[in-house]
């Protein structure tokens, strides 16, 4: 078990700098998820922690020692690969035992630990098989078995669920989360899927273009995003962004809606974020009042997603749990409580200084 600290880490391929001056503290025993769009550097970061990519600059500390130049075993890490990377010519048992054999353990000790790992993952009946004769889910378990058998200080997962079908992904997700509760090792998990991040993580690190956009618990990221990128990336369906114009103590919104506002140094143009699940169809409820033209109704059983646009053409998606009878082409009024709105500057930065007020009584 170990704490992982990245201090001013950078990574370049020749002239191309993909990660720059990145610092991060990963608590001992935490389940930390690196999430971000493809090409954000999350896998590179994980591979640097693993020892599969050289670190160009900065310090990597694992368990208090500098690990930049250690090989993976000395770092005390184990890794689960996206494509599982099982040894195709070895049985499941030999796959799991390989690292122990390399470490020079005795036959009895290896057998004991393999059996233990197999039991945790319920793959005891597969031990004699070759990877080619396993299903995707079984391969995934073997890959995890190969990692846990070493009892490493840090587990690394590189998009381990992306090759599984949707149903299996959901069940493996909860299994990995349970595994973490049981083993309590530090786990670092890379994914591009924000749902995986939200459901599994103690802490999420959102990355973009080699930089950390925000670090925090799933709830912090969802409720208090540091910028428009995080706000848009976390949460599904995506947050809606409405253009707004600040004039004096009022905000003008598409379709003539207005809000009062107060704050220092506000930009003239800004955007307001509304999560689909925060909007309420109808005219009841206070806060922001808007109207959208519905273009498409997605019925999902328990809920509905209404796609459409505001008067100025801004795309809008809201969730409606009870709005039977709405059809494409309808004009639908909806409201949103002010505390659910998030304001962002044109460069995406969160405008924390802005406080929103109910619209002043109609003057015009």
């Amino acid at each position, binding site marked *: 078990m170990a704490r992982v600290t990245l201090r001013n880490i950078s990574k370049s391929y020749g002239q191309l700098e993909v990660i720059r001056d990145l610092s991060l503290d990963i608590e001992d025993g935490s389940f930390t998820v690196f999430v971000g769009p493809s090409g954000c550097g999350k896998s590179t970061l994980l591979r640097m922690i693993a020892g599969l990519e*050289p670190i160009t600059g900065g310090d990597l500390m694992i368990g208090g020692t500098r690990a930049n130049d250690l090989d993976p075993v000395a770092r005390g890490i184990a890794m689960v690969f996206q494509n599982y990377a099982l040894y195709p010519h070895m049985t499941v048992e030999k796959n799991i035992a390989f690292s122990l054999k390399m470490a020079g353990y005795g036959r009895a000790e290896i057998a004991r630990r393999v059996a233990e790992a197999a039991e945790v993952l319920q793959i005891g009946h597969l031990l004699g098989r070759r990877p080619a004769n396993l299903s995707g889910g079984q391969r995934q378990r073997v890959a995890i078995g190969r990692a846990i058998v070493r009892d490493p200080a840090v587990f690394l997962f590189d998009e381990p669920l992306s090759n599984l079908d949707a149903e299996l992904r959901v069940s493996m997700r909860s299994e990995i989360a349970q595994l973490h509760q049981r083993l309590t090792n530090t786990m670092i998990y890379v994914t591009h899927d924000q749902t995986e991040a939200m459901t599994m993580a103690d802490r999420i690190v959102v990355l973009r273009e080699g930089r950390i956009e925000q670090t925090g618990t799933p709830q912090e990221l969802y409720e208090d995003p540091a910028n428009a990128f995080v706000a848009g990336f976390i949460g599904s369906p995506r947050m809606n962004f409405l253009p707004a114009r600040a004039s004096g103590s009022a905000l003008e919104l598409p379709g003539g809606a207005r809000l009062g506002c107060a704050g220092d140094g506000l930009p003239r143009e800004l955007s307001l974020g509304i999560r689909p699940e925060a909007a309420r169809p109808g005219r009841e409820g206070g806060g922001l009042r808007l109207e959208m033209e519905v273009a498409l109704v997605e019925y999902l059983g328990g809920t509905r997603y209404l796609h459409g646009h505001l008067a100025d053409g801004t795309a809008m998606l809201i969730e409606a749990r009870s709005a039977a009878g709405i059809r494409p082409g309808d004009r639908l009024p909806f409201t949103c409580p002010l505390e659910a709105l998030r304001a962002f500057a044109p460069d995406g930065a969160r405008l924390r200084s802005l406080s929103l007020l109910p619209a002043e009584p109609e003057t015009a």
Partner: protein
Amino acid sequence: MPVTPPKWIIALVGAIGLLWIVPLIGVALTSLQTPEAIARGWWNLGNADFTLDAWTRVWTEYPIAASLWSSVKLTAIATVLTMLTAPAAAYAFHYLRFPLRRGTLILVINAFVLPQQVVIIPLFQLWRDMGLIGNVAAVIVPYVGLSYAWAVFLVKSFLEDFPKELIEAARIDGCGPVGTFFRIVLPNLVSPISACAILQFLWCWNSLLLPMLFLREDVPLTVMLARIAGQYDPNVNMQSAAAIVTAFVPLCVFILFQKQFAAGNQVSGGGKE
């Protein structure tokens, strides 16, 4: 796999690589010595005596130009014939249905087990009776005939991944089987045919036994080299120059077309000769 390759690996492979070209460097340097320096042992660099003498005289001393022309002629004709006939045969075996098809195919692709030695007695008698000893055809016919075992196999392996829809579309468009071969299949066979060409080129150029037995004058470079290397001749420097000339063309072809060569060898898998 370590992040940075261990240095000892590069050093070891480097040492073996250098060891492997010592004979080549040796022959190259020998061609730059005088016969006297060679006799003294030029390896001891004190005895070395560098000169381009061998390279200026070798062209007149040995029939290099004639042999080079002979090598080019034999190799080019045999290679082109294989390139033309093997794909047609592979296409027929793969797409057409006719009696004894599978039996014939099995016979052809398994002919790779035949050592060249099997050919020489019967063909020697046949060419002698037909008066063909000394004629280029005496060498070209077995060059081409022995190439099918791997050439047909190689092209047919490629055709196994060729989209069948294209053949069916051509048929629906009213194209007959022969036309389909020339218009649809052949233009898409560039990569296996070039692999065939490389293999056939190298094999023919480097052959010794068949041209040695079936040709008299106008022998290719390999036969000329074998003849001068066999006789007692102190001009080792000129022999070395001749050896370099002999090896030069196939070596260049080989290095330039490594990829096709590798692919061809992997697919045909059964080797050749």
